[in-house]
């Protein structure tokens, strides 16, 4: 039956969006419980983008993420338990508890790091992919960024370098309508796709709430880039369901009215993808995701915290030890 075939194909994407959704909900609980200090930038509502993009990538392809980056890390294949341990500042975390929410990295699965400086990662990823090519590989790279980043000169410099040197990078803009509280219409002169087109980079607008639409658009972009066609840009239109950052759960910032939020939340990527599955298949995936995340929470909270006697371990790759701050 065709519906079963569609369900089988739709299952992995559904699992990823569901995993990200439930991971973020648990992470918010752990923020409230004081286990995750510093808070997080929830990815709720934008899950289709990470899931769809990473479904079109190979394990050895490279990505960089953002401050709102948990979805990218999970979709690219990092272990949810070690990701959660990182958020909880544990020695078993992806970064040994040295990076946290905004710097999670797992080089073993091509995650060159989330980056907390808006617009910075584009040129880093471009250089990394260029180098992989120089070293004989055929990897492509994806750099995720928000609508706020399109006003950063650094990102536009990356567009130029990638286009000029034909580096196979897919620039993925997650346009959720706001740079923190600044609406796109008040921040972006011209258009986001127009930014790319000015550098000769083909750019398309994608429905960022539909995982399959994102995956299909990414496949086309990745295929073109890998074949030597140079960079591409996808502007994924999406909506952030929750706060810019969990501090907004305590401090109400008045910048989105209730009607707009309700309208935005009406197109839920988990529901859009879930509707493509047989109910039984969907329930099975839900159960499996809950099990994975229950184990992840257990693993994270049972893991040791890093030794405070050595807070600057790894500061220098060469092993140089810095002078202590006293004595």
């Amino acid at each position, binding site marked *: 039956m065709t519906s079963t075939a569609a369900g089988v194909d739709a299952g992995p994407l559904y699992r990823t969006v569901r995993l990200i959704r439930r991971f973020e909900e648990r992470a918010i609980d752990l923020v409230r419980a004081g286990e995750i200090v510093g808070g997080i930038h929830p990815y709720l509502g934008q899950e289709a983008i990470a899931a769809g993009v990473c479904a079109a990538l190979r394990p050895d392809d*490279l990505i960089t993420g953002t401050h709102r980056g948990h979805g990218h890390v999970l979709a690219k294949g990092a272990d949810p338990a070690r990701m959660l341990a990182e958020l909880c500042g544990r020695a078993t*975390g*992806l*970064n*040994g*508890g*040295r*990076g946290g929410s905004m*710097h999670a*990295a*797992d*080089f073993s699965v091509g995650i*060159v*790091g989330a*980056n907390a*400086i808006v617009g*910075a990662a*584009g*040129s*880093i*990823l*471009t*250089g*990394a*992919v*260029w*180098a*992989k090519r*120089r*070293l004989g590989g055929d990897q492509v790279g994806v750099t995720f960024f928000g609508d706020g980043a399109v006003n950063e*000169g*650094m990102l536009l*410099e*990356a567009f*130029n*370098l990638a286009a*000029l040197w034909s580096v196979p990078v897919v620039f993925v803009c997650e346009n959720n309508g706001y740079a923190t509280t600044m609406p796109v219409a008040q921040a972006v002169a011209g258009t986001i796709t127009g930014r790319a087109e000015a550098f000769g980079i083909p750019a398309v607008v994608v429905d960022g709430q539909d995982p399959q639409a994102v995956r299909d658009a990414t496949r086309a972009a990745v295929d073109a880039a890998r074949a030597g066609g140079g960079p591409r840009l996808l502007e994924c239109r999406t909506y952030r369901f929750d706060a810019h950052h969990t501090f907004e759960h305590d401090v109400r910032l008045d910048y989105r009215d209730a009607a707009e939020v309700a309208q935005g939340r009406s197109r839920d990527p988990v529901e859009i993808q879930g509707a493509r599955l047989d109910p039984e298949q969907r329930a099975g995936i839900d159960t499996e995701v809950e099990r994975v995340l229950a184990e992840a929470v257990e693993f994270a909270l049972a893991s040791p915290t890093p030794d405070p006697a050595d807070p*600057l*371990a*790894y*500061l*220098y*790759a*060469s092993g*140089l030890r*810095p002078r202590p701050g006293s004595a």
Partner: protein
Amino acid sequence: MPRLSYLKALNRALGDELARDPSVVVLGEDIRVAASNLTAGLLKKYGPERIIDTPLAEQGFTNFATGAALAGLRPVIEFQIPSLLFLVFEQIANQAHKFSLMTGGQARVPVTYVVTGSGSRSGWAGQHSDHPYGLFAHVGVKTLVPATPADAYGLLLSAVRDDDPVVLFAPAGALGVRADVDPTELAPVPIGTGTVRRPGDDVTVVAVGHLVHDALAAAEELADQVSVEVFDPRSLYPFDIDGLLASVGRTGRLVVVDDSNRSCGIGAEVIASVVERVPLAAPPRRVTRPDGAVLPYAAALDRAVQPGREQLTAAIQLVMKG
């Protein structure tokens, strides 16, 4: 023995590393034609795939080099204008420098930033004449300021081979220095090791970069009055504090001469690091640019802002009285 210039020594080091290690690539502005001479002859020998002219996009190509390093290459970036380091301070201090720790040791960023002609080049005025080495030492980026051709060669070799980001300042005032050098004795100079350029008994003068040569000249001028030891740290971060303490432990007096601004400058750090460890016979002195200095254009004003030989001589005489 053949004469080797400081600039030629840097050029030779870069050429030797390109020959030795295929993962070394050089990026920068106008480097194919070798506008500063650092890359003279390298395009012909290594081709445009490894000697890469960049557009004027310093922030972009500095991060690009970080990414290339994360993926396994060993980029060298040339900056021909020292103040461009202000523009890329975020990319070096906040990105390249932080990757190793933030990723829990998953990543290394072996990028070398060579500043060909730092400090005053006479007549290049306010925005082309800074010496921002103290900023990099402050944030903990390895910071080298060689004074001699042999050290220029040896420190650049060490920088390229190092697994961390390294900034190498080649002061404009040192580029023309020539020395008799036995080519077979050119070798890597370990990062973080200073050296005594001139032994003495009465006072230790710490001189940074091209000022080593001024300090040596001042020491000779004063030789009949005072025995001056000249200590060249070569590396400002990490700093060879043990080497300096050994010197000051003998002389008991300290003067620092440093061609950068006074407040929070490297001179202050050197003095603090010494006086918290050993007692001195007299208050230490530093000779620097003034607080907040912006190098003025007119030649006499440019010179007036830089630490001068007379100021250094006066400082030495002052600490000898104390």
